[in-house]
């Protein structure tokens, strides 16, 4: 890591691999550009911490992997009039230029919730028109087909009200609809119904929570624009609007829906857009602040978490893993676990791998002649496995399974009960919370009720204080006795168990790895008993 002082003798900003060290913390937001392109914005007083020499504002974690090479770093206020730093800087040991781009080479920036995104600043006019037309289509479909009152919201609404244009540095469009339901269960059911209707209309989408669907709009420049469809609703007098907003807002701020013009495209908007923007961004919403961050009421966030979330908590981190360290694993060999499983199965016996990850084992088992179904909750992992299977001309089915989502568990259970497969799960247990593990046992009970075996491998906690397995924070050790008790409580029987040295997900040595072979006995149907009258 090297440092360059921006202004001698006393630098206002010192740029390093850690972040930006400011001699003092200006109250106004600061915009950071790399080689003249917007990258990120911050407010030092909020985002920094006091260190000797000033206030250190650390690089957002998502940027760190790019910071290896030379780059011209400019730090200036929003108007660009007051420049705190504008010099070439060497970061890390790289000899090229720092490039914050996606795998297709498209430029990225950091958005207000700390994710990497493509900013509208870098979007050609024609592509922007595609985004607006797509957003209009989504709003029309929500109103005309799904029958809900939908309106433009968040950054796109802010830009429309301020200038009739998208605000720079915004990356997607957000739309909301006001649900008439007041019970979270009904609100989720309505969101499922909307998802089905939108799918039938040809939209590709992802479910982000019980009340949030992400529409993926393909653009002519090769990327996907995200249109978030958020629910807004009222429970017990409090108004909630996803992402995480909650508080007091009258229905009359939303209904009847009005219209607003964005780059010449007319779009449905809340009845009182200014009041909606004040609710979302606070009273200072008219003053541009690219470093804006939400300050949502903690109680509201906790309620929304409890009602609507909890089935994709680690999804983002696993996606990052599969796009980083996981990608390197793809080139590895099958695990010794796969060989252990194969040895115990008749030739050609069907196998379902639960939590297939990069698919090394699933693909190897398919090559060994086993019909294979590969289940994983990560879309990135499933896409990688499918791509490799096609490349190797291997036939295997790849399916989604979210063990924290009961309906996908029941669906997979029903499928496997009708089409029996042996089950294999390597280093899956340590990635699951208690609920997901209990639903895995339910899946096994459904799938193996007619026979078959579950093969397990996981990092064991045997009380010897072995180091945490990798990837850190995503996998943990489990006590084999606890696992055995859970299996038995779910009607299973551990036929064989052993703890030996092995390797973790990344292939690093692990002194205590447990393997189990488990069977479920077919439940006996109660015989009818006649009682004497």
């Amino acid at each position, binding site marked *: 890591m090297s440092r360059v002082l921006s202004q001698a003798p006393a630098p206002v900003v010192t740029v390093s691999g850690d972040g930006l060290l400011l001699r003092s913390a200006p109250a106004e937001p600061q915009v950071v550009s790399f080689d003249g392109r917007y990258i990120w914005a911050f407010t030092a007083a909020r985002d920094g911490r006091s260190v000797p020499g000033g206030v250190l504002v650390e690089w957002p974690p998502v940027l760190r992997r790019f910071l290896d090479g030379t780059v011209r770093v400019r730090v200036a206020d929003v108007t660009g009039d007051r420049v705190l730093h504008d010099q070439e800087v060497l970061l890390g040991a790289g000899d090229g230029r720092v490039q914050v781009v996606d795998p297709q080479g498209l430029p990225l920036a950091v958005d207000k919730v700390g994710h990497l995104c493509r900013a509208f600043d870098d979007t050609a006019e024609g592509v922007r028109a595609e985004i607006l037309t797509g957003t209009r289509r989504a709003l029309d479909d929500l109103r005309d087909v799904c029958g809900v009152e939908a309106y433009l919201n968040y950054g796109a609404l802010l830009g429309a009200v301020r200038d009739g244009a998208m605000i720079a540095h915004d990356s997607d469009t957000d739309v909301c609809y006001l649900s008439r339901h007041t*019970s*979270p*269960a009904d609100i*989720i*059911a309505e969101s*499922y119904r909307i*998802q*089905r209707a939108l*799918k039938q209309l040809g939209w590709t989408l992802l*479910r982000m929570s*019980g009340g949030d669907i992400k529409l993926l709009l393909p653009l002519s420049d090769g990327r996907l624009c995200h249109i978030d469809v958020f629910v807004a609703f009222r429970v017990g007098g409090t108004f909630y609007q996803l992402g995480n907003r909650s508080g007091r807002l009258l229905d009359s701020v939303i209904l009847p829906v009005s219209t607003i013009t964005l780059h010449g495209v007319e779009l449905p908007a809340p009845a009182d857009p200014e009041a909606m923007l004040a609710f979302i961004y606070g009273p200072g919403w008219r003053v541009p602040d690219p470093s804006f961050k939400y300050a949502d009421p903690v109680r509201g966030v*906790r*309620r929304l*978490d*409890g*009602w*609507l979330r*909890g*089935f994709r908590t680690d999804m983002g981190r696993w996606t990052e893993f599969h796009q980083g360290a996981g990608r390197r694993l793809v080139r590895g060999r099958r695990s010794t676990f796969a060989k252990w499983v194969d040895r115990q199965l008749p030739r050609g016996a069907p196998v379902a791998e639960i939590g297939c990850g990069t698919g090394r084992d699933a693909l190897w088992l398919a090559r060994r002649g086993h019909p294979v179904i590969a289940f994983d909750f990560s879309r990135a992992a499933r896409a990688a496995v499918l791509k490799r299977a096609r490349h190797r001309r291997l036939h295997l089915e790849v*399916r*989604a399974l979210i063990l924290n*989502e*009961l*309906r*996908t568990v*029941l*669906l997979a259970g*029903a*499928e496997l009960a*009708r089409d029996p497969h042996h089950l294999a799960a390597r280093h899956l247990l340590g990635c699951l919370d208690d609920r997901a593990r209990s639903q895995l046992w339910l899946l096994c009970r459904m799938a193996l009720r007619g026979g078959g075996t579950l093969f397990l491998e996981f990092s064991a906690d045997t009380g010897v204080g072995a180091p945490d397995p990798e990837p850190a924070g995503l996998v943990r050790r489990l006590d084999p006795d606890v696992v055995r008790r859970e299996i038995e409580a779910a009607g299973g029987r551990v036929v064989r168990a052993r703890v030996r040295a092995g390797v973790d997900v990344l292939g690093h040595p692990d002194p205590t790895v447990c393997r189990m072979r488990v069977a479920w006995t077919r439940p006996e149907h109660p015989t009818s008993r006649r009682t004497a009258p």
Partner: protein
Amino acid sequence: MTTFTRTRARARIAQDRYRRLRRRPIGVRARLAVLEEELQESRQLNRRITELVDVVAELLVLVDDRDEERVREVLAQYRASI
């Protein structure tokens, strides 16, 4: 009752009061934490109930037709719809 005994009895009463007073706020905090946790669990039931209802309404009612071809079709349709 001697002065010593009376003093000891008073001391015991005072000690007992102090313990009760100390225990109460600690107890309330601990109970509050448990209550919050249990409330969050009960909120989570909203999604579990909806998932179950979804499976029953979209899948099980049709599976009950016992038409093998139709059941396969329904399972595939359901997977595509979620």
